[in-house]
């Protein structure tokens, strides 16, 4: 398995501002992902964070709104830009480990936008 930490664990932000969420893994991993969990909802994949290249976004998510960095094999950031109350969610990062076939999740970042 992998141990994953996220910062911040929660934040309250004003409309129109941006927040960068950090994800740190305790070992090198090939694949990292970012998910969104809206209140009372399930998880939706935002993008795959690729090391050394641009992230791969899922339908409905764009780089201008959710820029992602992946400078190395243990770290990634997700920025939520120009926030609105609709962006209030839990954002989770995950990694593919355990022989590249199992996904492990971080504790999540709970974001509230006022």
């Amino acid at each position: 398995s992998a141990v994953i930490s996220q910062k911040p664990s929660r934040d309250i932000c004003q409309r129109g501002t941006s927040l960068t969420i950090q994800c740190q893994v305790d070992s090198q991993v090939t694949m990292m992902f970012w998910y969104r969990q809206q209140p009372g909802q399930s998880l939706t994949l935002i993008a795959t964070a690729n090391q050394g290249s641009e992230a791969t976004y899922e339908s409905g998510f764009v780089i201008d709104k959710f820029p992602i960095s992946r400078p190395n094999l243990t770290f990634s950031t997700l920025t939520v830009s120009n926030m609105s109350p609709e962006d209030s969610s839990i954002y989770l990062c995950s990694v593919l480990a355990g022989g590249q076939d199992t996904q492990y999740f971080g504790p999540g970042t709970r974001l509230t936008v006022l």
Partner: protein
Amino acid sequence: AQSVTQPDIHITVSEGASLELRCNYSYGATPYLFWYVQSPGQGLQLLLKYFSGDTLVQGIKGFEAEFKRSQSSFNLRKPSVHWSDAAEYFCAVGEKSNTGKLIFGQGTTLQVKP
């Protein structure tokens, strides 16, 4: 398109009673199947997974799940529920192409009565 259905949004059981959480999937072939648990304010923890072989898989915390290809189901069971099992449970389908992408069901909230 792939999809995962958890028909029960909310389930309440008495402590010590048995539990079965339902999960049905739609996928072109036999997928990778997972059950995760999310306790309040926590990230997702992997309970168990099925890739191939024995269709009855054992997981952590006394949980097990059975893959039934004919019914496209992967139901989660526990013979005796503990109060600490109260949480949200997510069934997920993963692509065998090793993209790491997971598709989640809507989740089932488990409440345990004393």
